[in-house]
């Protein structure tokens, strides 16, 4: 059984048809990189998986079970699918440690001491345990994004979504975030990453998916995708970003 299955998923924003029949299968531990021009529907695609966006047609299965099933509690689902946003979206009024412990203590009702020790482990994993008492505003962009990764991991999700996690960062900070993501990939996390970091894709992706106009128009393992793109639009896109 695949970890994630998209079956002919369609989505509209009002009149605008943003996802035009997405069918994808992602195995447990697989790392999928999604790329494509701006407005092609990449964010919409991954945000459907934790129901941040509703879909109007098709089916999405997580471990074989429809995420839109009546028996699925949306808050429960979201603890199983972590997401990291382009703009970090940390809680500015809480310390780094509180950012990570908020959901475990409030959603999982985990005792504070236990949540904090888990949070410290996660912060250590992304290399910022020495910043735990600081507030987000005191950290660099790269550090904030690593806190955001730790915050998502704190719910022990089965899948992690990344929506252009390095696009808002200064170039010298991109690598520290990519390294944290690579560690996660190597540890066996199932990941869907919208990113244009092709070095990252080559190194850890199992498959690269190219989207345009709400459809997946090409997909291949990274070596094939980069060396021998089939579709004309993929070629044009790669020429532009490489």
């Amino acid at each position, binding site marked *: 059984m695949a970890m994630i299955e998209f079956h002919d998923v369609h989505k509209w924003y009002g009149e605008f048809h943003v996802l035009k029949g997405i069918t994808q299968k992602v195995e447990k531990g697989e790392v999928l990189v999604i790329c494509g021009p701006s407005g092609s529907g990449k964010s919409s695609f991954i945000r459907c998986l934790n129901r941040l966006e509703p879909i109007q047609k098709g089916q999405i299965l997580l471990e074989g079970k429809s995420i839109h099933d009546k028996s699925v509690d949306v808050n429960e689902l979201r603890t199983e699918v972590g997401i990291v946003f382009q703009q970090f*979206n940390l809680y500015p009024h809480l310390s780094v440690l509180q950012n990570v412990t908020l959901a475990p203590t409030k959603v999982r009702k985990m005792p504070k001491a236990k949540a904090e020790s888990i949070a410290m482990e996660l912060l250590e994993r992304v290399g910022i345990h020495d910043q735990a008492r600081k507030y987000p505003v005191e950290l660099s962009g790269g550090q904030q994004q690593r806190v955001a990764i730790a915050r998502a991991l704190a719910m022990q999700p089965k899948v992690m979504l990344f929506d252009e996690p390095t696009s808002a960062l200064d170039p010298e900070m991109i690598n520290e975030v990519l390294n944290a993501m690579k560690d996660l990939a190597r540890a066996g996390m199932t990941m869907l990453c919208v990113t244009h970091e092709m070095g990252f894709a080559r190194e850890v992706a199992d498959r690269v998916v190219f989207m345009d106009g709400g459809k997946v128009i090409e997909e291949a393992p990274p070596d094939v995708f980069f060396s021998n793109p089939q579709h004309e639009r993929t070629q044009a896109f790669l020429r532009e970003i490489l």
Partner: protein
Amino acid sequence: MQYNFDWKLVLSGEYLQWIIDGVVVTCQISALSLVLAMAIGTLIAVMRLSAVRPLVWFSAGFTEFFRNTPLLVQIFFWYFGSDAVLPAAVNQWLYKQNFEFAAGVIALAVYTAAFIAEEIRSGIFSIPRTQLEASRACGLTFLQAMRYVVLPQAFRIIVPPLISQALNLFKNSSLCMTIGVMELTYMARQIESYTFHGFEAFTVSTLIYLTISLLVSFSITQYNKYFLRTIKY
């Protein structure tokens, strides 16, 4: 004619006592109105944010009406109009109490509530939607996200403008002298008509208003310095 300054007259004995009594009444009427205004203002803001149409209309009408008519007119309205609006039994009871005081409190509270409602509403709106989204994405329910993420941030942003509203209320309370509430300005006026030393009386009362207001403003600046520094997106 030469005006003889006599500060001692105002700052001792009976007249000093009048000023002190006036300050006490000013503080009482301000504090009571503020508590009421906060309660009404929060209620109006929540109604305005709810999805229930009649409540939204009512709260919008309330806000626009009371913000856009002169406070003095509203004070007269409650003072002279309560006969027409309230049941006779309530009026009887009110007349036995300190009626001027009650009319003043209601007028100030309702007027200030309209401004406070707007501050609360815009405070909640000023928190980026992405904060709600990020917390919902971690599995928090809507109410948990409001309680732990959105409202604590909104509150920090709202406190300084709320304090300015409280200051306005404090200064506006002087208008209640017109309906005979014996607050600070009323007392200063009283001293002037008994002694013809209005200049001294009003200087002293002005300084009292100024001191209290400046103290409060100073605390807002401190608040901004220490508590708002972490809120950046």
